């Protein structure tokens, strides 16, 4: 498959005869490795799915690219981000997964863990720098659009929001399409939506969104 503008540091490579997304770094969640490359599993990562489905994320990769990652959990995805990007701030509010996240942090000197609530940016605005190039958000909790709007203050004017919306987190009983409509509408308060795509191939009832601040 031809690489449609994958960020620098992300490649499609062979693992056991199948071509998979990969980054270079220490293994984190038992993913297959080949030399210094490790496979990035799109079924376990919404950002991985967005890249695999060739959404235009605008990610460039490289040491200069700064990232704020909301909902880092045990570090599955954010470890790949730290592998290809520059300074990466990882916000997660549950203590248990963060114990594992700390292990991924150990071998990644530009990955900064923050045990904070993404609904309260003022509790980490004294740490996270302004004008980050990218916000990746995967919080799977009620009020996902609100979280994105609250954190817009960190994003550079020409930065990108890469958001995974989980319909069931907003309302398990409603049709996912209605939930997504509402999220899109609320997001429009602060963002211009550039691309949206269902991630169902890898994540049921999830919507991937690429947006920029307006």
């Amino acid at each position, binding site marked *: 498959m031809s690489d449609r503008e994958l960020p620098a540091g992300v490649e499609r490579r062979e693992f056991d005869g199948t071509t998979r997304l990969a980054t270079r770094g220490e293994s984190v969640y038992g993913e297959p490795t080949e030399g210094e490359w490790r496979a990035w599993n799109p079924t376990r990562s919404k950002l991985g799915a967005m890249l695999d489905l060739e959404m235009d994320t605008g990610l460039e990769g490289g040491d200069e690219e700064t990232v704020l990652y909301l909902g880092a959990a045990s570090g599955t995805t954010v470890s790949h981000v730290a592998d290809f990007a520059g300074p990466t701030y990882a916000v997660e509010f549950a203590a248990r997964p963060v114990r594992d*996240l700390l292990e991924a*942090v150990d071998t990644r000197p*530009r990955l900064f863990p*923050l045990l904070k609530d993404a609904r309260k940016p003022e509790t980490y605005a*004294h*740490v*996270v*720098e302004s004008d980050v190039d990218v916000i990746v958000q995967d919080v799977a909790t009620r009020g996902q659009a609100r979280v994105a709007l609250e954190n817009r203050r960190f994003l550079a004017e020409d930065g990108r929001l890469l958001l995974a919306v989980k319909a069931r987190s907003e309302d398990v009983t409603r049709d996912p399409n209605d939930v997504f409509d509402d999220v899109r509408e609320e997001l429009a308060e602060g963002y211009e939506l550039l691309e949206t795509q269902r991630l169902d191939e890898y994540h049921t009832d999830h919507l991937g969104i690429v947006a920029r601040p307006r």
Partner: protein
Amino acid sequence: MTEDSAADTGWFAGLEPDDLKAGATAIAEGTASEPADWPSRALEAGFASDEDEYYDRLHEATTAATRAAVERRERADDRQLVHAIRAMDDCHRTANELAERLAEWGGTIDPEAGTGVAYARELVTETDREVDHPRVRSLAERVVSLAEEAEELREYVERETPTVAPNLAALAGPVLGARLISLAGGLENLAKKPSGTVQVLGAEDALFAHLRGHAPSPKHGIIYTHDAVRGTHPENRGSAARALAGKLSIGARVDHYSGERKPELEAELTERIETIQSRTVDDDADETGGDADE
């Protein structure tokens, strides 16, 4: 917005660059209404000589702050464990009580009525069974789901105790470890108890009877269920219980105060118990607590 943020200061404001502890505290407790270009500000303030050094310090401080916060929160998880083990016992007891009632009732309409939770399970799974009393069947379902809840609570306890108290869980087993935490009223309380008290936790009734003067002093409480005590000849159980309680106390203290894992505690316990168990009973008839376990 830029004017506003002039009032905000970064996490590094006023810190000595090598004071990691203060840095971690500032990360954990500081706030700002708006972010700023903290790396440049840090350089201006002389906190770091270049961007790389700034990010290295940030990495150290965020890691230290996050590790400390995770440990603090996980310690608070002993409260969750206490509730879970109590709920597990309640579910067990209630399931058994209701199962007795069910067996009594079932016996009046079901010639093959059995006893206990097992009978409730039969009623629920063998639908062709000749019991067409909807209330009896429904009661059986409640019994089974209570028993299942108890089982799930046990799984939760088995999963959680090792993160809350890794050494205690390894020495006592996760369920007994959680029971000790529960009886003491929390991990901190357990860590502060002398090992003689840990030895008789759960035997409070016997202890009070002894103190009132009409019973011998109990040799062990709940730790009786541990193989180290149960698997030892009755003559030597006092020593085994004392040795076990000593190690459990140390384990609980390490868990509470440092959280560091010390596998050597298990090895020491095993060795001590083997020594006690290999004593011939006769040699040891005069077991009055002369051997020092601590």
